[in-house]
């Protein structure tokens, strides 16, 4: 329940055209990116003919980002590691609120740059795990872009099983190692 509320609050905090593009796209597919581009272009065209109206709408949006929302968003931005199931690169539903916050942050701060580091657990072969780590990082990149981040803000690198977060050989360690970490290069 709380997550849904946050999700909506965050959505409101950003420009109207992006909200309409992303809010309905929490389950991503290949088509999402193209749809978003089309929406953006329409919004721009509309902007050319009715400059004043669009500006006032976006100003209202900014003002709704109250202190409470900013704090909630900050808390979500502190979550920078996202976990995956074995041999899977599907974003877990519990990761989406924080990822949406990162996407919104990137959308609002065009100068911000992130590296998405993809990782796998040690089971299986190093090269396949390198590919799997990349798949995971790319899944996160798609999500961030569909939710407002720009391509040029995101770099992806996979370390496969080479840089584990936990060095044990148990289910617990493996679960901690199947991850994507968002690392901000500049804020």
């Amino acid at each position, binding site marked *: 329940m709380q997550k849904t509320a946050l999700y909506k609050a965050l959505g409101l905090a950003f420009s109207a055209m992006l909200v309409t593009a992303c809010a309905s796209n929490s389950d991503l597919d290949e088509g999402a990116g193209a749809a978003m581009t089309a929406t953006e272009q329409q919004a721009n065209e509309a902007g050319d003919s009715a400059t004043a109206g669009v500006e006032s709408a976006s100003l209202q949006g900014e003002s709704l980002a109250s202190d409470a929302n900013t704090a909630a968003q900050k808390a979500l931005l502190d979550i920078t590691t996202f976990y995956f199931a074995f*041999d899977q690169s599907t974003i877990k539903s519990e990761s989406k609120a924080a990822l949406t916050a990162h996407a919104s942050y990137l959308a609002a701060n065009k100068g911000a740059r992130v590296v998405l580091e993809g990782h796998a657990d040690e089971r299986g*072969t*190093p090269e*396949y795990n390198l*590919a799997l780590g990349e798949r995971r990082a790319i899944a996160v990149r798609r999500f961030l872009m569909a939710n407002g981040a720009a391509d040029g803000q995101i770099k992806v*690198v996979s370390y*496969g099983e080479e*840089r584990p977060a936990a060095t044990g050989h148990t289910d617990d360690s493996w679960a901690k190692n199947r991850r994507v970490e968002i690392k901000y290069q500049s804020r």
Partner: protein
Amino acid sequence: MVNRIILSLLVLLSLNAQAELVIEVTQGRQSAIPISVVPFEWTGATNLPENISAIINNDLGSSGYFRTLDTQLMLSKPVRPEEVVYTDWRRMKQDFIVVGRISADEAGYAIEFHVIDVHQQIELLHHRVKGRATQLRDLAHYISDFIFKRLTGIDGVFSTKMVYVTTNKERTRFNLNFADADGAREQLIFKSSHPILSPAWSPDGKKVAYVSFENGQSEIFFQELSTGRREKVISFDGSNSAPSFSPDGTRLAFVHSNAGNPDIYVMNLNTRKVERLTTHYGIDTEPQWMADGRHILFTSSRAGGPQIYKLDSETGSVKRVTFEGSYNARARMTADGRKMVYVHGNGDSFHIASQEMSSGRVRILTRDTNLDESPSVAPNGSMVIYAATENDRSILAAVSVDGEVKFRLPSRYGDVREPAWSPILN
């Protein structure tokens, strides 16, 4: 001059990075041939820096084809054929004995040795080999290869080398090491604070290709072994990995991905032209050339989990070759093309399996190691070296392609990973 300085630096670096691998044979073959390597005569004033007969003993014993006799159990220790008392060796149930003598001159060492058939009471081989003072281990391995080839008909691989990666627990140091196939004489050839993986030998044994993250993304480098000279060969935007040289050394298969879609590519090493061979949206990785220089085995997730497929590099046609188990990856071929070995996973267990190419029959080769990965086949097709997890560490272990012989190469500290066995070097 510069090369010499680099080399001496490498030697210095290697001193503090030694993982010190030591062979422990854990399982031998029932049908192994009993052979005694009698300590060779040495009349020099000082002890030799290497124990030649012990190295030969260890080589032959670890091959699984021979069962060697402890020197303490020998009833006599002849160094010439005429000194052999046959009843001593028949009593110990020995088929063959090796005797020999080491001499030195200003040029280095000479070793003269004889292989004697105990049952027929005849000298089978009489041979002499010479080397420089620094080549005592090479001389020993040469003798092992010579005896192995004459008695089994198979090329020996005791003079071959391997490269492998060692890391610390924190994964902040990565070393690419070069060593004899028995783990001795380890040398550090490249070190980095970023991951190094997938070392692969060129067919002429003169260079290795590997993946390095030193520039913040995975790129493929070549490194010439004699000079240490490095060349960045493949660094397209995104991820570049899994290099594999074609059998004639003119092409390099590799994996490239720039949008989460790893595919198999081939670079012509003369023209540096690149061709993309797969376009599937699944993961395609771990290419390995087959002996015909046309087909490539690779791992793909196109059917869900990873399985091994065979790709025709001329027509692009793809055929699945593994069907048993949910995880089959990283195929390597024996030189005769009859078998492939790969990582076979079922649930949480990952072991090395071999599969006959003609019948598709699968055999799991390893059972007593865990999380087995990175198999690499000896150039004579006899053994597979691989990385495994043991007591919270990563070690190298080896198993014969028929599963009968096993040995381990544990290191004193650190994790040892990603072994690659060299071709036969001349």
